[in-house]
């Protein structure tokens, strides 16, 4: 079974004026249970110590090692080489700012997204550190947790045709984040408040329904369902505003 894998890896250091974007080829013997994370580390150790890529947890939790594997955004640590052909092309995620080679800056975008969505519980309740934590229905807590599993890897945004054409689009990660706070009973924001954040062409009405986000999400978040639900809810929130007695 031992195969020799050929890796074609994008190389470019934007900090270095002499660097030009190009592809380097590395050949590596495949071992049992090899992931791209293991392969990249071996390439860096054995062949090219200058190769830049991000990783941290190697278990699909930190979201740092997202890259384009044979055309599809995915996590390097989650991708087994045995599921790939002998020729493997690795590119950095598009859309985000390139740090170098396979490393991109997703943090700045996600920070900005969190600020746009105002990604925190909005409440006027005074916090009492002595009081017991408020109880929440378990089913609801699980529903919120399901959306909170997002690891901010950026795959959904990098796979999104809308975001690629229109960089101000909030993306599935941002819309999913709002959906998470919309579920949370502690967050006092109303549907009209949500509308002001995502009821526009940079938000849910910009989504063209290409569903690449749904298909590449390494955590299999229910993005299609969340986007559909948000469009339906925000669509009605817009219509409701036509009724004078419902107007805010």
């Amino acid at each position: 079974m031992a195969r020799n894998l050929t890796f074609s890896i994008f190389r470019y250091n934007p900090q270095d004026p002499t660097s030009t974007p190009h592809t380097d080829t590395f050949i590596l013997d495949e071992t049992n249970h090899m992931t791209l994370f293991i392969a990249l580390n071996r390439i860096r150790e054995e062949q090219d110590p200058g190769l830049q890529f991000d990783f941290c947890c190697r278990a699909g939790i930190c979201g740092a090692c997202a890259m384009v594997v044979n055309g599809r955004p995915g996590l390097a640590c989650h991708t087994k080489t045995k599921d790939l052909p002998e020729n493997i092309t690795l590119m950095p995620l598009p859309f985000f700012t390139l740090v170098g080679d396979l490393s991109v800056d997703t943090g700045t975008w996600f920070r900005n997204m969190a600020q746009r969505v105002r990604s925190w519980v909005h409440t006027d309740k005074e916090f009492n550190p002595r009081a017991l934590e408020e109880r929440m229905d378990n089913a609801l807590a699980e529903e919120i947790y399901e959306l909170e599993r997002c690891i901010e890897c950026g795959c959904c945004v990098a796979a999104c045709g809308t975001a690629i054409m229109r960089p101000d689009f909030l993306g599935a990660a941002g819309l999913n984040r709002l959906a998470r706070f919309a579920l949370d009973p502690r967050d006092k924001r109303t549907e009209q408040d949500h509308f002001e954040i995502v009821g526009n062409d940079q938000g849910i009405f910009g989504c063209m329904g290409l569903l690449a986000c749904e298909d590449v999400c390494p955590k299999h978040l229910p993005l299609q369902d969340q986007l559909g639900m948000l469009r339906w809810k925000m669509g009605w929130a817009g219509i409701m505003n036509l009724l004078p007695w419902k107007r805010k």
Partner: protein
Amino acid sequence: MSKSLSIDTAAYIPSPSRSSAYLDWLQMLTGAALILFMWAHMILVASVIIGPGVMNAIAHFFEATYMAQVGGPLIGLVFLLHFILAARKIPFRAEQQSRIWKHSRMLAHKDTWLWLVQVITAMLILIMGAIHMWVVLTDLPITAEKSAARIQGGFWMGFYLFLLPLVELHVGVGLYRIAVKWGFVGRDKRPKMQRFEYVITAVFICIGLVALLRFYFLAL
């Protein structure tokens, strides 16, 4: 003087607006209406397969009730409105076009490609659909014999052989897109919906082809 008051003093703070929601509703509703119209249209035209008399009787009904004379131009307006609304999403800048093209090639993702199919068929249908409507509506009444004569002329057979799959693809993909975009079809039903899209597209292309052949071989 009073004019200076019309300056938007909040120029740098976009005022909250509902227009995106209304436009998105309109885009979806005009699309859904046109899907229903295209299916009804195809079924009515396909009545020629049963016999030219059946088609003539149906066409006569629509003209005697003025539905063709009034409804035809109205459909034309809905068609134009739908184009204008959906064109908000079409990339017209060369930079955007190049981005989405490279992106689609990189991703090799079916639904992303199908969106490009929607965009390209939209541009062609805008022109060819307008030509078709003009030719038919300026030459009322519609009869099977007149349609057959046009098809047998040669040029129009080619025209419709091209327009038919364009329309059915656009309608099929559009139906699927509305269903998944608005949450009518969830994650679990998506593969089923996709199959339904393929089947309905293929069925209507077949009906259309048979109707075209019937026109082509109709004795005049």
